[in-house]
């Protein structure tokens, strides 16, 4: 084996180990979410707990040492985590569409909103859709259980009619037991006549 080949192999080995930055083996870095808000995580280890939040965004830890705060340059975040960040799935979105009283017909406003739901699904390379139907508390529990399911199934069928794959759309109903606006029984609250759609 030639000396230059050995040198290349050594360099590749170093790159694979990643031991070419100032941070230790285990590194934890908080990121702002899509709205710019920073949450928090608690790092628990044999040496105790360290809270990371907007005042202390990163920590590292070697196999024997304590967890300690560290400042991570944005360019290092990109260098170390760029590939993992680029692999992030598109964030799921949730929609709420409303129905005409005692029917599986969408209200006029929700018919327009439906187009946004459809567009969001279509823009995803791959989709999983969950539709959960609900009713208001007017009428019997059994009747509303069936109506909530009919609403979810009608929505699923509409999506299939528009060309989507039914195998990737799950429809269930929860009747009147999970109202958006809690009411007494036998109240026809429009905001409870709805489907909640999660697009992943």
């Amino acid at each position, binding site marked *: 084996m030639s000396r230059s080949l050995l040198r290349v192999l050594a360099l590749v080995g170093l790159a*694979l*180990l*990643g*031991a070419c930055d100032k*941070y230790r*083996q*285990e*590194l*934890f*870095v*908080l*990121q*702002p*979410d899509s709205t710019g808000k920073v*949450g*928090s*995580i*608690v*790092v*628990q*280890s*044999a040496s105790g707990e360290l809270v*990371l939040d907007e005042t202390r965004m990163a920590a590292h*830890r070697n*196999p024997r040492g304590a*967890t300690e705060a560290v400042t991570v340059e944005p360019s290092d*975040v990109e260098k*170390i*985590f*760029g*590939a*993992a*960040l*680029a*692999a*992030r*799935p598109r*964030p*799921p979105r949730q929609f709420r569409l409303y129905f005409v009283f005692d029917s599986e017909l969408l209200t006029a406003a929700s018919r327009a909103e439906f187009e946004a739901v459809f567009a969001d699904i279509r823009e995803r*390379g*791959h989709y*999983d859709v*969950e539709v*959960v139907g609900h009713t208001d508390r007017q009428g019997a529990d059994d009747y509303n*259980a*069936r109506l*909530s*399911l*009919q609403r*979810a*199934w009608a929505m699923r069928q509409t999506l299939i009619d528009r060309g989507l794959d039914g195998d990737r759309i*799950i*429809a*269930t*109903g*929860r*009747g009147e037991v*999970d109202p958006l606006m809690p009411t007494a029984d036998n109240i026809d609250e429009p905001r409870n006549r709805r489907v909640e759609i*999660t697009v*992943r």
Partner: protein
Amino acid sequence: MRLASLGVGLALLLAPSVAQAQDAVPADAIGWMKTVQGSVTVRRGATALPASVGMALARGDIIATGHDGTAGVTLADNSLLSAGPGSELALDEFIYDSAQLQGSSLATLRKGTLSATSGDIARGTPGAMRVRTPTAVLAVRGTTFLVRVEE
């Protein structure tokens, strides 16, 4: 067809809410593979499956990316996990009741790099989403964060 499905749905409706939540995703799926680049394998028990976009994931699955591979996962509570090259990520625990927005999850990054964004489990109970490394456990109170584990 429609009537049969309606019957199944009504049966689900009458079951306790936890069973509904489990049945809201196919079989025992806890999430889905959403992005796959390069070589990515899902180890399930004694078998190693080539990862593909859309693949349903189960509790206990280990996602392994090759030196050219990356993978992104959406879990049923809408949390997101994605791994860079040379990573091993185990989906150890996942319990979620979508009606109550309650549950707990645990994933282990054995090596490599991870980007994680919390979902409804951490929203319902701060700290109930956990990510483990060889020497630490991260309890997530709702955020996006990054983890590296070098061998």
